[in-house]
């Protein structure tokens, strides 16, 4: 089993990250470096760069392959056929005309219902605060009903 390559996190040089964990790491690290002005490579969202480097990177990105592939359809040795005409049809219903509604927001329900919640993935201090608030909230729920 060959060992995996360690990559350097774009936000913090000290972060040496396994290639396969990069996605996960970036999710967290991005939050801590929200103010840092970085740009994304259009081909791969784990490629995070400083603005001046972008142009060079885009030219040489290893994931550019699919893009080139997409752009060069016309050079393919055979051509795809034409699709057949599609009959006009009238659907008995039309949802386009119906008014758009607001989407369901589970957080709203959750913040009022007497259910147990936890705040995973937050900072310990936030979690502690959340727990305190939850206790009060649920107490209020229990007493109010």
């Amino acid at each position: 089993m060959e060992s995996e390559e360690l990559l350097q996190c774009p936000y913090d040089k000290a972060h040496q990250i396994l290639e396969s964990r990069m996605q996960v790491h970036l999710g967290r690290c991005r939050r801590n470096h929200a103010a840092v002005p970085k740009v994304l490579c259009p081909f791969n969202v784990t490629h995070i760069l400083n603005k001046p480097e972008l142009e060079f990177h885009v030219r040489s990105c290893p994931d550019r392959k699919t893009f080139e592939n997409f752009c060069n359809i016309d050079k393919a040795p055979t051509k795809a056929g034409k699709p057949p005409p599609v009959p006009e049809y009238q659907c008995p219903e039309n949802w386009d005309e119906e008014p758009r509604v607001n989407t369901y927001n589970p957080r709203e329900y959750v913040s009022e219902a007497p259910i147990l919640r936890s705040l995973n993935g937050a900072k310990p201090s936030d979690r502690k605060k959340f727990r305190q608030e939850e206790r009060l909230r649920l107490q209020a729920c229990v007493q109010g009903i």
Partner: protein
Amino acid sequence: MDKPSGSAGRSRGIRAGSGSSQGHPGARGRRPPQAGAGAPPVSAWGNPNVGMSRGASRGTPAVSIQPQPSTSTGSFQQRPQAPAVIGRAVAHRNVPPTEGAQGQFVSKEDNRGTVRGKRVLTEMVQSRPKNLVTKCGFSGRNVVAQANYYRVLKKPKWSIHQYRVDFSPDVDMVRLRRAYLAHHKDIFGGYIFDGTVLFCAVYLSNKMVNGVLELLTKNREGETILIKLKHVGIVEVADAQLLQVLNLILRRGMEGLKLQLVGRNFFDPVAKVDVSGFQMQIWPGYQTSIRQHEQDILLCAEITHKVMRTDTIYQILTETAKGKDYKTTFAQRVIGTVVLTDYNNKTYRVDDINFELSPLSKFSTKDGDISYMQYYKQRYNITIRDHQQPMLISRPTERNMRGGQNEFIILVPELCRATGLTDNMRSNFRLMKAMGEHTRLNPQRRLERLRNFNSRLQNSKESVEVFNSWNMAVDNALVEVPARVLPSEQILLHNCKVTCDQNADWTREFRNNAMYVHVNIKRWCVIVPRRNLRQVQDFIRLCNRAGQSMKMEISEPWYEEMGDDRNASYSQAIDNATARDPQILMIVMATNNEEKYSCIKKKCCVDRPVPSQVVTLRTIAPRGDRASGLMSIATKVVIQMNAKLMGSPWMINLPLRGLMTVGFDVCHSAKDKNKSYGALVATMDLTSSTRYFSTVTQHLKGQELSNEIAMNMTYALKAYRSEHGALPKNIVFYRDGVGDGQLHQVFNTEVHHLKKKLDEIYVSAGIATGCSMVFIIVSKRINTRYFVNKQNPVPGTVVDDVITLPERYDFFLVSQSVRQGTVSPTSYNVILDTMGLPADKIQILTYKMTHLYYNWSGTLRVPAVCQYAHKLAFLVAESIHRAPNAALEMQLYFL
């Protein structure tokens, strides 16, 4: 049972402190107190009123403080238009006393795409709320379903103290750790101890010195062992950690049923079944979890099975020892397999065999050298019988190495049990059938098993004791859930419409109806080994006839004959054929050969992009009684070829114009573990185009999430634009293959960037509101099952309440019909919605989308685009191993 006229039973979102209005006796839709319904279930909330508060539907004294006009239910949020049948399913307790068991097909220990724990929902999408928004739909016929959940009626009402327990000298075996701690059980009262963490109701502060409680105990050899307890926290009734404790209590209770823990689940060694003729046992077991669901805390119980092989590696060794060159044979059979060692319940992969070593060899420990014989005797009290056997070597995994364990692990064949099914077993039809009989339970049997489980849990002495000491109680009847059967869809063919039958299948309609859109095949080529020419010509004639009955014109093909059927001949023939620019190739393979198939597909998808239809001789050649079935095979082949040529065999009524549905799935190659491919398939507004856009990208080894999803979507939008001259009005994205634990990841790596990118594109195209999109996560491997009248629910049965999760906008849908076993619903989780369709419409749309897979004239368990994406990812991962040629990207060439 009366039918509540309104929805008071389901209103949600009671505001704390303002609940007074709901309980008014005159409240609309209120159910009269039901004398016959037995005592109202005691809530899991300590306060008996809370559990049923949502509807205030029972005449409980705690409600109705201020009398209010009977129309005043509107002062709190109500879920509108709830199915009239049911309030909280509790009310149905006295209708049919169904409980039961549900099932699963052969349960495999495959954790692909799942990550345990951590459902981070803090950044969980969504932004707008306001007035009567609900995740419940209303269309369709209301039915009552029983789900494989039990209510947790009571739970501990007091705080629970949590301690960390350490032993000195260290004790490895959990069983012993438990035993030592049990010597002091009097001071704890009711307690749970999993080996490191102790939960109990008493605070031992007065006995503690410097925050640590030290206890002494003696082991069998008379040595003194010091147990150190450190208080680390308190779990309050309002903490979500209580759920963890409840789960632990349940597991303790289940231990009382004489079940054995294998992996994470409990299995029943008493009820095991021997599969005759094979050294194999099937252990029935239970998969349980207690979770906070929509309104209550529910216990989900699912019946699983474990296939246990009873043969040890030593037995394989003795078998092979009879033959010549046993070392090589043994190595061939054993290397690469995964073994289970009973003494510590762990699995290892065998990487090599050391014939020099034997159990008598010594290795060094910190207490000096010791032989394997002695080691196992001392540590696990196991006597190794054969002193001559070679030893197995397992390389530490990456993870072990990171954990500091970087030496080879030496295993004794005698103590290693083989696991998994070998190819030999898998291809054994008789064995697989025998296994299926035990593992594939129909709804009745499954319900029976669940009932059995529950009654054991309620009646066995030990488990009752555990539950009582923690003041916990589980309901004895299955949860009843309001469900709806969505109306059957109409299938549009060329000149007629047919309504799906009960099984959602319309195969028969193609006998004499034309397809919705067909492409006449005028130039095509059949590649065939010369000696099979006659049989193939017969089949082509049948295809012709099948085409005629569907009003599709299929001209006589030209035949590219090959002298033999070697890979090179196929390559050559495909080159020759494509030179004449055919619409489609039909390639006949004499036998099913993966390598050959791979070679053909590489040629047709990458080098010479042309749609191709591979058939094996076995399927198309008449064999005795099968002559009659050939016509239906020919029909299916014609339908498939039509779909590959951008025809559209059928359509459904699609009430949205300008809709792009997108499916995304990842396939991890079974053979080459280093390769994973993600495929994206998008429709180009089905009402006006029969094209599909598809693209494939390679992922890092085993990676489920895509870094390139935003890029792929821009390609799809570009294709849509060149097709229609405008961007799609709505996008519905179905993402398959991500587990619960990855939701947050999906949001971070995929949805977030996707949304940003698409909004950018839409804004630059002059649509200031950005892109209107729904992103739905599709999960097939879930433990939820539900039944209607003790039968499998019919296709189109939706459940969107009670057993759903409160932090999600989700629903369950059974869209497929199954002939054997229990149908398993698919869970859909809407994690982003900027489209503004009500929940009801999203459910209907999803159901519609399951009708459009052109390889199967029936409904699927996932939306068709997901299945297409899976098919494409599978083709690339298993056969062609590289991105297909872009010239094909607008057709369903991978079908």
